[in-house]
């Protein structure tokens, strides 16, 4: 059985995920909310930055880049 629950930072390219919980502290937590990421939001991983360290995600029609430290504190479930 493959792992389906993971930190967002571990998601693979083109993976669709659903947010299970957001463990970020303020003010990052609020920033993430502002972009429309709350529990239950679905997002798609788009791609890695060439030197790593951050990835871009499609969230509610916009492309947002988030550093892996922050994305690591957003727990998601892989969906199909």
């Amino acid at each position, binding site marked *: 059985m493959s792992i389906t629950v993971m930190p967002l930072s571990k998601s693979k390219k083109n993976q669709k995920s659903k947010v299970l919980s957001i463990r970020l502290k303020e*003010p*990052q937590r*609020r*920033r*993430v*909310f*502002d*972009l*429309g990421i*709350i*529990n239950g*939001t679905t997002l798609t991983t*788009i*791609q*890695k*930055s*060439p*030197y*790593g*360290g*951050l990835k*871009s995600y*499609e*969230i*509610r*029609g*916009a*492309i*947002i*880049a*988030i*550093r892996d*430290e*922050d994305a690591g504190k957003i727990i998601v479930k892989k969906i199909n």
Partner: protein
Amino acid sequence: MNLIKIPHLKVRMTKNTISSKTNEKIEKTVAIAGNPNVGKSTVFNALTGLRQHTGNWPGKTVACATGNYTYKNTNFNLVDIPGTYSLLSNSAEEEIARDFICFGKPDAVIVVLDATCIERNLNLALQILELTEKVIVCVNLIDEANRKKIYIDLDELSLQLGVPVIATNARSKKGLKELMECVRKVCFNETKLYKINTDYGKDLESSISKIKLNLDKLKNLNINHRWLSIKLLENNQKIISSTENNLKNNFLHKSDIPKTVKKERKKFKNKNIQDIVVESIINRAEKIYKLCVKTQNRKYNNSDRLIDSILTSKITGVPIMILLLLGIFWITITGANYPSEIIASGLFWLQDRLLDFFISINSPEWPYSIIVLGVYRTLAWVVSVMLPPMAIFFPLFTVLEDVGYLPRVAFNLDNVFKKSGAHGKQALTMCMGFGCNACGVIGCRIIDSPREQLIALITNNFVPCNGRFPLLISIITMFFVSEAFGIFQSFFKTLILTSIIILGIVITFVVSKILSKTILKGVQSSFILELPPYRKPQIGKILVRSVLDRTIFVLGRAIAVAAPAGLIIWLTANIKINDISIFSYCSNFLNPFAQLIGLDGVILMAFILGFPANEIVFPIIIMSYLCTGSILELENHMALRSLLIAHGWTYRTAICTMLFSLMHFPCGTTCWTIKKETKSLKWTVLAFLVPTITGIILCFLANSIMKMI
């Protein structure tokens, strides 16, 4: 224009303009709000005709810009408030936006939504609707949305929000008339508005209504009571104190409201009230989106993703970035040559006529010597050397900005910046620095964290600005690329120039790292950046905007400093004590130290005299070698080369001069801007010393090593 806009147009100023009503026309104030990158400034410009610069990256409008238009005998004062994603966080931009909507008392608020990204954008619209019902929703970029096969049911959207909705395409002025009419109607209460509040669930709603009841009893509380109740329940201290300050009403201490709030807050022991608020709003936005927007083609972003996969991939991303940099410099260098020559010969022709004129009226020598050979010649040099590269560089750069490439640079390089303890957005401020370091310094405001903002500010000078390019290019031409290179000449020039700039970038990383390990220690902040859709650049507008807004502005400033500087230079070179000019005294004094770092007294003196504007450094060097006491233009690079060699220049001097040009104190304007931005003498002094000391150390090392070889 935004980059170099003089900021601090605060809310209060706008209020003053409203109060000065004239009898003939009615004045109305309209705020224009929206997420970053939704074409908000384009709507603003289209309505007002004011040329305000818009860029395709988040966080460009850092202070409110104002403009006005007249429609049906009413004067509408339009205030462009900073683009924000929300009004709930407490960043500087959001505070400005929130305070203006709350306390600036606009007669209406236009909320601009990006038609291609309605769902996320609705979040802000709903938050603004909590504050005021006098809202007009402007769905912008409607053409782009239709192209992407996104269809929006405007009537349904209007029904869901309870306010008028207008579709526009501000670039082609589509829908603007309707927007103006709608704004007028809302301002004059001619439209029926039936705002629908977001439902926060039974528990929270009951608490809200209890507090609101208490607030309703208070007099002179000129703010949406429901909204304030929510903020009280959230215990949002910043908003509460800002409300008390702005309304001059310490309602909290007068009544039993705090007691009620405390009681109600207790009911939510285990829940974060703000989370409930945020989630309710986002969920409502999602619901409205599903009701009003139909997308036929789910893959409408595929072409953007394809471009992204090329521009930000591991293999091609960075090489393309360097190639683009190379390309821009190559076009600038080659393209600037001819116009530079033409302008120079024109201006120097005029100089001869001026001299003829003075001689014909039998003027004594010193006045025309000061005016023509001192002031005019310096000006002519600055104009002819600076204008053509700027007129080419700025538009090219603005195209990259307009297309949406710059945020990708930040995305590509963020990890390198992170490893140096800096912020990915510093890539953007460095890019601005290529044009003008003072602009780069102002641009540092887009970095939220104060620590990383200071790093970006202090290191911005390591990116050579337009004023320093001429010196670099001239030295490269004279010492490193001879005519023998033939058609490849300009290519090699560009290559060397690009290497120097890459050196500057590497030094930026190293110095940032050192700063973040020493005086600017601290926690890394997060990096969240939107990568906006690629958009077709508006070539015509870019030309007008970058030439008028940036080129003329920067050139004007350069001229303003070059004229008095020309006078001082003339004086120092011509006032003689014991037959030796003041200039020579100083340069002789500086010479021993200058020799240590591979320069000579004259070069160092020229850098010091060039403090007002970097572009006059090289002319001063030439002038003093020629001992003519005024700046000269030598037509031919080879003649110039022999002049320099005759004064002891070697490859070592050339390299050290270029290094020192890359790394020395920021120019006067930049220092002044740093002082204004940091409001601290300490950081200004540091921003002055860091590049200077770095330059001295590196020049010393380079000089010593080359001597040994």
